[in-house]
């Protein structure tokens, strides 16, 4: 039995914002943002703990290569659960608040922020972060 602590960071890829995502009419602005995505997943070594180990009579204890293999599976399981953890939604809410406030400081009075219906494809898609 091992326990791990994982830190996930989610956010918006601002590089994906194109000119056509900004509609400006006087003091009114509409910004279309890409959907939030997982920016990083961190399982710090100092927060990985072995809680218990029991093996049968005919088996050696787990070596570290095997423990790393098990932890990698746990890492993938966390990565695949991102959608259900609610952090993407929270990241989008936070982005609306932060970007909206910043744009208002620039002098716009009417700020609307929307999101793409689907994630945009980019060069990082499929790459482990």
């Amino acid at each position: 039995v091992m326990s791990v602590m994982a830190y996930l960071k989610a956010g918006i890829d601002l590089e994906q914002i194109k000119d056509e995502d900004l509609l400006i009419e006087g003091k009114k602005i509409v910004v279309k943002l890409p959907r939030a995505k997982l920016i990083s997943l961190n399982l710090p070594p100092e927060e990985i703990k072995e809680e218990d180990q029991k093996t049968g009579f005919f088996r050696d204890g787990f070596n570290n290569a095997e423990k790393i293999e098990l932890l990698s599976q746990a890492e993938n399981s966390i990565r695949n659960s991102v959608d259900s953890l609610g952090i993407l939604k929270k990241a989008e809410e936070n982005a609306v608040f932060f970007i909206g406030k910043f744009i208002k400081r620039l002098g716009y009075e009417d700020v609307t922020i929307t999101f793409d219906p689907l994630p945009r494809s980019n060069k990082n898609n499929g790459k482990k972060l």
Partner: protein
Amino acid sequence: LKKLQKIGITIIILVVAIFLLQRLKLLPDFASWFRSKPLLIENTPLLVENIRDMAQMVTQVSFDEVVIKDDDVPEGGYFRNLVRNRSLADPLEKRIALIARGRVFAGLELNKVKEEDLYVEKDSVRLFIPPAQVLDAIVNPSDCEIFIEEGNWSIEEVNELKKDAREMMRKRSVDRGLLTRAQNKAISAIENFFRSVGFKKVVVLVK
């Protein structure tokens, strides 16, 4: 003698039959009985401890790979040296080597930007940003591979090696100019954003 012949022929027929059945994959592979089964974790529930708001702007990610080794070779007495000189394995010696791949994220901590750092007048804008910093250095389990493990190494000892690898990567990426690149990228991204929302005169400076 006839009885022995009969037994011999029966054994030969049995061996040939088993061989043929195995080739046709109609019998289980006997070797697999002794082979270790793949290690799989059980479906474990995830517990979300907390969700925090952050304001970071990641502008550079550096990928790196380091090989890290450690050993524990006890001082040798007469008998231990005798064993070593004869190239026999010393059960008290420990050796480990692992390859760690990791990522170092750099950019701006936007919470450090204060109200007074932004100055706007008509079509001009000036913003002071904090200096770029390392936001994360990550070495995950799937980034590590152990290629030598002799003796007993506890998970804490292996974690220490991973931490050393992570620090090595963090230092190496900073030495290679990660922060300068992150800062330049942040300045150009913010300048482009200001221009795209209608500003003509844009100045972004580092505090």
